[in-house]
């Protein structure tokens, strides 16, 4: 009797929690207060703490977690798309709300009013998870697969130390059962090392194309020590940041051989990449319409992850081909007849890659850089000194700096040799005003490149939405059913995007 009463109470609590969450979500969207992508899950979770674990347990095909400093949104998207093509009903948090309450919200959408998950037998969860939330997410969701893209210096005011994040991950991953699979980046020593001493099966992916190796490690490289014995790692190849082919000269630990290996990667400037990839199922070609070596790596991670779900590599190729820029990832907008490309930057390695992309081609560029120091951006702005702005010197036709810490950026650029005295730098803290000014100064036929941190990009985007230049994020993709646009967003055509920071996103992914 007692037991019955207990379970009846639990069921009632769940129903109230789910009802509250669903109502809040509807109201939030009606009021245009954002997508309601995390608050419903948050509130429902407060009413019923077991909600997330309870709902996740009802997923017939379990769930997948994707984490890492950079690339988790893109990797999640490609994987979810491929899984969908393979006939799975994918539930995901495409709006980038990557804390537990964001995942809970994504699941809430699929419940009935008694709080029971109502999904087809083919349902599976593919969720992006904030680095700091991986442990609790594993505990609540018991994932069958965890994909880790990389680990860079990011928001030290929130994560404190790169090593600390790696230690937390290691502890959580060791709790995964032997039935689970771990997909890891072989090129990142700290991530690759997570594969030692775990019960779960491990599958590595990595780059084998020597063509993209650079002679020396960049300053932003975080991990140059052997994760096993702490001695120097010897790099035979270095791709970007601390990613490369390495071995420890002391203990002999070395980069594991990847089963998913990209042995030839061709990059087409800002348009995308084409990779020849060896997979356990044979060789494949992956074309990704997202620029940069890092996006080729994201597709590789997604391919490895999808293979663990039994998804055919050809379906991954189809998914990758349709990948569109996530919020602020190479989003193209047209304003006043001129084109701007928006890139989200959030940490030194990502900023370096964005600069490399923008400056590839060697012609002078029109730039708008915007730095905020709100919590989602990281309150500590010291990281801009780990970015190699020195590469911009002599390559900027015009540069505007904006954001709550525009002055810090201006100072950084001065010490990088882009002094104000040449008259090519504009300091305007208001990102919208800076954008208008910068795009007005960009000649017809040229492109303005906007590199901004999370909340300043969000502020700019909100204004562009108001003007009708881009569509609001919640119209572009609905939880669990992202729109398929079929090709990268072009001028005037809305790109898919994620929740604004008002939705409670933690990392500025």
């Amino acid at each position, binding site marked *: 009797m007692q037991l019955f009463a207990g379970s009846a109470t639990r069921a009632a609590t769940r129903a109230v929690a789910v009802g509250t969450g669903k109502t809040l979500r509807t109201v939030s969207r009606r009021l245009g207060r954002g997508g309601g992508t*995390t608050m419903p899950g*948050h509130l429902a979770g407060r009413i019923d703490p077991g909600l997330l674990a309870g709902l996740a347990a009802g997923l017939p095909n379990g769930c997948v977690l994707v984490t890492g400093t950079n690339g988790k949104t893109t990797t999640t998207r490609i994987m979810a798309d491929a899984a969908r093509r393979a006939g799975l009903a994918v539930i995901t948090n495409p709006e980038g709300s990557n*804390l*537990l*309450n*964001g995942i809970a919200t994504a699941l809430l959408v699929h419940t009935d009013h008694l709080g029971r998950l109502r999904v087809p037998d083919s349902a599976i969860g593919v969720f992006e998870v*904030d680095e*700091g*939330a991986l*442990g*609790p997410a594993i505990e609540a969701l018991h994932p069958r697969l965890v994909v880790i893209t990389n680990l860079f*210096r990011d928001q*030290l*005011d*929130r*994560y*404190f*130390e*790169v*090593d*600390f994040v790696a230690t*937390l991950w290691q*502890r959580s991953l060791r709790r995964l059962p032997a039935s689970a699979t771990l997909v890891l980046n072989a090129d990142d020593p700290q991530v690759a090392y997570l594969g030692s001493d775990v019960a779960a099966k491990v599958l590595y992916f990595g780059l084998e194309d020597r063509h993209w190796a650079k002679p020396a490690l960049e*300053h932003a490289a*975080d991990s*140059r*020590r052997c994760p096993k014995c*702490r001695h120097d790692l010897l790099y035979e190849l270095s791709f970007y940041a601390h990613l490369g082919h390495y071995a420890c000269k002391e203990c002999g630990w070395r980069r594991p051989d990847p089963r998913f290996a990209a042995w030839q990667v061709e990059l087409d400037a800002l348009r995308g990449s084409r990779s020849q990839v060896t997979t356990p199922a044979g060789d494949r070609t992956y074309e990704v319409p997202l620029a940069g070596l890092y996006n080729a790596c994201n597709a590789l991670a997604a391919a490895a992850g999808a293979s663990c779900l039994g998804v055919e590599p050809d379906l991954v190729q189809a998914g990758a081909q349709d990948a569109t820029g996530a919020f602020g990832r190479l989003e193209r907008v047209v304003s006043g007849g001129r084109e701007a490309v928006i890139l989200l930057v959030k940490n030194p390695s990502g900023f370096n890659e964005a600069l490399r992309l923008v400056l590839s081609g060697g012609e002078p560029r029109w730039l708008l850089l915007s730095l905020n*120091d*709100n*919590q*989602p951006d990281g*309150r*500590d*702005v*010291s*990281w*801009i*000194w*780990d970015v190699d702005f020195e590469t911009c010197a002599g390559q900027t036709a015009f540069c505007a700096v904006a954001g*709550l*810490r*525009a*002055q*810090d950026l*201006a*100072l*950084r650029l*001065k*010490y*990088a040799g882009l002094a*104000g005295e040449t008259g090519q730098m504009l*300091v305007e803290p208001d990102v919208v005003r800076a954008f208008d000014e910068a795009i007005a100064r960009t000649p017809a036929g040229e492109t303005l490149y906007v590199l901004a941190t999370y*909340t300043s990009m969000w502020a700019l985007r909100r204004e562009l939405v108001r003007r009708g230049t881009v569509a609001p994020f919640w119209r572009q993709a609905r939880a669990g059913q992202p729109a398929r646009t079929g090709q990268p967003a072009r001028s005037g055509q809305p790109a898919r995007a994620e929740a604004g*920071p*008002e939705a*409670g*996103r*933690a990392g500025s992914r």
Partner: protein
Amino acid sequence: MKLVLGYLYPSVMSQYGDIGNVRTVIMRCRWRGIDVQVQNLELGCAVDPDGIDMFLVGGGADSHQRLVYEDLLKVKGEGIRTAIRDGAAAFAVCAGYQLWGHYYRTASGEELPGLGIFDAHTVHRAAQTGTRLDTITSAGSVRSVGNLIVQWRGNVLAGFENHGGRTYLHGGAEPFGVVLSGGGNNSEDGLEGCVWHNAIGTYLHGPAFPKNPVLVDYLIGKALARRYGKVELEPLDDELELAAHHRALIRARERPQRWRRLLGQGVA
């Protein structure tokens, strides 16, 4: 004129944009026609006390400190101490500052002996309270993280602190400054950093030099004075430097409440 900058453990102890301090010394000297030569003092490199005019060491995690402390004591200690006693300038930040004191007790309770240049010792807050660092929240609860504003010789310095260690000055130690906003040495006595001769130990990241030109010029002056006698440094146009400094002071006063409330949720 020439200034030789000894940059300690650049590949290990440069986790928080500390390279910015190096770039700042180089540029501010170059603009005045002073040559700067940077010597990277990695693990295993000894220190020639007559050869280095200014030492810089930045921040790192407990694991990084564990990696370098022995080398600091056995390979470099005597050279650094001799140079500083002789008037060389130094700027040791965070983990670097901690290892230049008598000892640092890490979060796990391990005691790492330090150089003893600063008459101070440091204990990680987690070791003081017995806190287990098994989540981001627990780690955050024992750290001093935020904008740090310090009064130093009639100047206001702006930076950012991010440390778990609490540093306590001993009887004869001279503090570097007084905390105007933030935690400083230990969040208890209102003091920040430590000074011995021309060596400054501090929790000011940021990095500190770019937006505190008065501080970096002071140390450049001290470093050159040892070799060339008193040097008048040519004034520079510091408009951008002071604008960034001013902005940092404003941001230190504004509490980012809304973001914190929304973003604290869900991170265990």
